[in-house]
């Protein structure tokens, strides 16, 4: 592995990337996103910005109970309200669905039961939001209250009143994996340590609340409602099309899903969210276009965030720091529906592998149902909370063995190419360089251990998949397909199903297509994520887009390039292989590149060569030119070459697709399909923090984050993704937490959920490491998720370095920190934790509530566990 370049931190307003010249003209350049102007001018349209003539507004009635049977639902009073057009209930769309084939446990609107506060009961469609809201108050529902479960370990004991009848003990799924010989591994170790870690629940809080607009066409033949078009804020338009087809009993061919601009996803829009189905069902019943946009509170109920996770972790090491065995028991508080849960619990185990060389692993994973909103996929899906535990424990071990925490990580490196004990294939592996870089940039060697009082440094590593090697729907279909059409105008239209959600999908596609074709970026027009126009792509999740859609784009471009080359070669009287495509022209390899019209880099990116001068029309004065035209040419403009090709072939289109190679698809064990990826990204981070020992407040001063992204296709975007991941990890580490009281979310708003503001957000120095993956497009891997997981333990380890307390529960709020500091000093204890020592959380907190939360709250059912706890 060779680190080709790193971008450094551009302090001044002058780009420093230009010092890294590569063989590429567009790849590796820090270009503005192709949709940047739409976003900075406000001209770009997100779903809620759209409206149609005659459009109605839908509002959803939510359950006030965490678990109840619906005895009766009467919508007649609501229906009678002026300007109410329709009221939709569960019976209007009884087919079940769910994102995973094994988890079809949701309905658009509840049929027999509600399973969390916020579950969907009915939808009122009216001419205005105010009318719809007023009508919601008139829907009468009679409930039979059922005992509810809020704590996963309590929930697992349930014998009756199950959340789903077909899930005994409210256990969504459990897995028990043994790789190697863990018992032997622990027996061979010199030192074993074991602790419980607790990561509280967090959510995506993307700035755009979910929104869906659904509209039916009238069919010309039948005169009846025909095709359905849905505009939605989704990361997965094709999955949405599939689920709509299931629930509405319509063929997929009759459903068109269009993804407008999406205001952030982070996993929260990576599955079908109830409003997306409800809007379509409502439009069918109301016989008019219907738009539903969630309130922020509804976004919190829709959730699908990172579950509260309890991790019992045991690690055995030799005296030299080499890991001999790892045992993990992971319990996830999954909420009321399956969602991506089965995948989450598998990732938590699988991604114990592929970062370090661990010869023996035992994993017990439990995904448990509780009466709270469903958890799902969130940035760093499945790996984040376990990585927090693992990297914290490794730090502790390093301290115990008196090995430098950076060094202990180096001693456990993989030796790729290799296949890990749990069946993950690792090829490119930039982790060693990542560690070297952050050690160097942070001044680790000279500063660690010599920091001022209450200030410390912590290190941690993480990794992530570049797309899942196996699709959630088992099939042999390609994961991404891209079509390219080039017409006589020289315009290149790329049709991709990949979903731009702010991460730069469209820009990546344009860069890969332009680089492959050697044409100007301005020739590229992206048509994306419209199921009528674009070929299937399974969506923007698990960091798969650059690797998979990027490869598909490259292949499609190569196919059209081949056709252009064969036509151009005829004109130039040479073999197609002798042609070079670059800088918007096609020329013979032997030709002096500069003579062939290479323009300064800036111009070459932005402008296509002059249009309108096609073959046969070029009449220039100079003799030299004339002579050149008469004989075989040495070069042609891209446009000339295109016209020559179309004259020859009649049309110029190409298709490329990508499916992960068989070798990368993982082991054969049950659940072995989750975790394998064609390539893994790597991250190493150092965090510098200080702790106020009187208040427990933690300040993060700086994070150095090195990330191996294979190759940085667009360094400014890669750095943005690294910074964003680290920053989101910092939020989970310090301030963000969903606080529950008896299944009621206490902070369902951005005022109380507290994602960090600019004031307390630290400087984050992104360091790009390029390992050039053998299978990635131009060597690229993922860069949007892998860095998140390292931040939480890096901060935890830095806190330990600063003040000597080991925090095993996230987030590290001031009171948790202060309580731990007091406990350490044996000072006046502060009962802020309901008697539970935060340094050693040996049992779960009362019914899943955050430890700080001591309000008594509502009394519910006599069987409510919360009530039993109070009585006892």
């Amino acid at each position, binding site marked *: 592995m060779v680190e080709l370049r790193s971008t450094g931190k551009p302090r001044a307003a002058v780009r420093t990337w230009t010092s890294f010249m590569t063989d590429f003209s567009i790849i590796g350049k820090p270009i503005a996103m192709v949709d940047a102007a739409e976003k900075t001018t406000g001209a770009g349209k997100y779903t809620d910005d759209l409206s149609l003539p005659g459009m109605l507004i839908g509002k959803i009635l939510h359950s006030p109970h965490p678990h109840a049977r619906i005895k009766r639902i009467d919508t007649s009073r609501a229906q009678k309200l002026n300007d109410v057009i329709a009221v939709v209930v569960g019976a209007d769309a009884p087919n079940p669905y769910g994102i995973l084939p094994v988890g079809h446990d949701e309905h658009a609107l509840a049929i027999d039961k509600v399973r969390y506060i916020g579950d969907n009961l009915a939808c009122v469609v009216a001419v205005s939001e105010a009318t719809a809201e007023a009508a919601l108050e008139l829907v009468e529902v009679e409930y039979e209250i059922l005992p509810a479960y809020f704590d996963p370990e309590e929930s697992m004991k349930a014998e009756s009143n199950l959340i789903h009848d077909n899930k005994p003990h409210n256990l969504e799924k459990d897995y028990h994996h043994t790789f190697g010989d863990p018992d032997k591994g622990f027996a061979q170790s010199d030192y074993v340590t074991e602790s419980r870690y607790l990561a509280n629940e967090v959510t995506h809080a993307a*700035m755009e609340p979910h929104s869906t607009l659904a509209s039916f066409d009238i069919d010309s033949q039948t005169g009846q409602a025909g095709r359905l078009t849905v505009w939605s804020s989704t990361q997965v338009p094709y999955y949405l099309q599939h689920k709509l087809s299931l629930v509405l009993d319509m063929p997929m061919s009759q459903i068109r899903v269009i993804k407008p601009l999406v205001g952030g996803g982070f996993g929260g829009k990576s599955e079908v969210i109830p409003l997306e189905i409800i809007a379509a069902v409502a439009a069918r019943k109301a016989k008019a276009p219907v738009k539903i946009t969630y309130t922020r509170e509804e976004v919190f109920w829709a959730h699908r965030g990172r579950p509260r996770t309890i991790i019992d972790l045991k690690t055995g090491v030799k005296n030299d720091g080499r890991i001999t065995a790892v045992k993990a028991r992971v319990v996830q508080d999954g909420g009321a529906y399956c969602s991506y849960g089965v995948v989450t619990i598998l990732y938590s185990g699988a991604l114990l592998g592929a970062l370090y060389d661990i010869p023996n692993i035992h994993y017990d994973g439990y995904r448990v149902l509780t009466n709270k909103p469903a958890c799902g996929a969130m940035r760093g899906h499945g790996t984040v909370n376990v990585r927090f535990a693992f990297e914290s424990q490794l730090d502790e071990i390093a301290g115990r063995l008196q090995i430098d925490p950076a060094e202990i990580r180096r001693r456990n490196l993989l030796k790729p190419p290799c296949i890990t004990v749990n069946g993950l294939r690792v090829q490119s592996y930039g982790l060693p360089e990542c560690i070297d870089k952050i050690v160097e940039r942070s001044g680790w060697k000279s500063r660690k251990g010599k920091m001022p009082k209450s200030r410390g440094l912590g290190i941690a590593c993480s990794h992530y998949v570049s797309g899942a090697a196996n699709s959630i729907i088992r099939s042999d279909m390609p994961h991404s397909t891209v079509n390219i059409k080039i017409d006589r105008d020289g315009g290149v239209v790329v049709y991709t199903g990949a979903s731009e959600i702010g991460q730069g999908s469209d820009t990546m596609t344009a860069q890969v297509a332009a680089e492959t074709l050697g044409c100007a970026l301005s020739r590229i027009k992206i048509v994306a994520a419209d199921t009528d126009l674009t070929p299937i792509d399974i969506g923007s999740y698990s960091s798969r887009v650059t690797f998979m859609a990027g490869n598909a784009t490259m292949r499609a471009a190569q196919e059209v390039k081949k056709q252009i080359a064969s036509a151009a070669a005829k004109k130039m009287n040479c073999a197609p292989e002798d042609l070079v495509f670059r800088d918007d022209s096609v020329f013979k390899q032997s030709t002096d590149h500069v003579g062939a019209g290479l323009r300064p880099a800036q111009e070459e990116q932005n402008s296509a060569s002059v249009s309108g001068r096609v073959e046969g029309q070029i009449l220039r004065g100079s003799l030299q030119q004339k002579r050149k035209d008469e004989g075989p040419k040495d070069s042609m403009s891209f446009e000339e070459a295109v016209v020559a090709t179309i004259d020859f072939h009649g049309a110029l289109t190409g298709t490329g697709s990508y499916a992960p190679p068989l070798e990368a698809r993982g082991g054969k064990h049950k659940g072995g399909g989750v975790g394998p990826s064609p390539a893994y990204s790597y991250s190493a981070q150092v965090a510098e923090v200080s702790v106020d020992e009187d208040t427990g407040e933690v300040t993060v001063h700086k994070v150095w984050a090195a990330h191996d992204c294979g190759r940085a296709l667009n360094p400014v975007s890669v750095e943005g993704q690294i910074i964003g991941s680290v920053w989101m990890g910092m939020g989970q580490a310090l301030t963000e937490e969903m606080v529950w009281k008896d299944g009621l979310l206490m902070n369902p708003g951005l005022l109380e959920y507290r994602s960090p503001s600019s004031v307390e957000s630290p400087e984050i120095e992104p360091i790009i490491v390029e390992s050039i993956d053998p299978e990635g497009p131009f060597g690229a891997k993922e860069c949007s998720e892998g860095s998140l997981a390292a931040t939480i333990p890096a901060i935890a380890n830095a806190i330990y370095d600063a003040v000597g307390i080991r925090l095993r529960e996230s987030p590290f709020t001031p009171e948790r920190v202060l309580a731990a500091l007091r406990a350490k000093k044996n000072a006046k204890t502060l009962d802020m934790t309901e008697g539970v020592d935060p340094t050693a959380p040996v049992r779960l907190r009362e019914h899943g509530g955050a430890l700080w939360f001591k309000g008594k709250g509502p009394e519910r059912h006599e069987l409510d566990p919360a009530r039993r706890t109070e009585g006892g």
Partner: protein
Amino acid sequence: MKKQLIELRVNGRPRELAVEPSKLLLETLRQDLQLTGSKRGCDDSSCGACTVLIDGVPMLSCTLLAASCEGQEITTVEGVSEHGALAAIQKAYGDWGGAQCGFCTPGFMMTVKHLLATTANPSEAEIREALSSNLCRCTGYSQMYQAIKAAIEAEQKGMDSLSQQVAK
């Protein structure tokens, strides 16, 4: 409730509208004037995605009644770009990764426009303070600081070349 006729000045143009007294400025901009650049990101006046300038001062359009804004000059993100081209700050946000998903960007455009109008050479601390009214979930804010510095530089260069032209 019966609608009332009001007259708003938006992006330099008078607009006559009939709105309910309870209608918020944000809803009026988005629904009645189709100025959908201003966004609704929260319901508790905490996210800043709806920020507009009222007489040049950034305020939350989700927290103002439309009818209360009569007689005041309202500037939305749609009024930021100049003569069909991006303003320096818009260009810089694109170049430096200041916008990812872009949903919070219109709000930031307005607070940054105000910052640049009122503070000649803001320090990093002043920039952080000015941005602290708006939440962003993608960028961690870092690349915005670079964008703002670049925009200031670009504007100063533009001024320099302008004054040179004048001198000639």
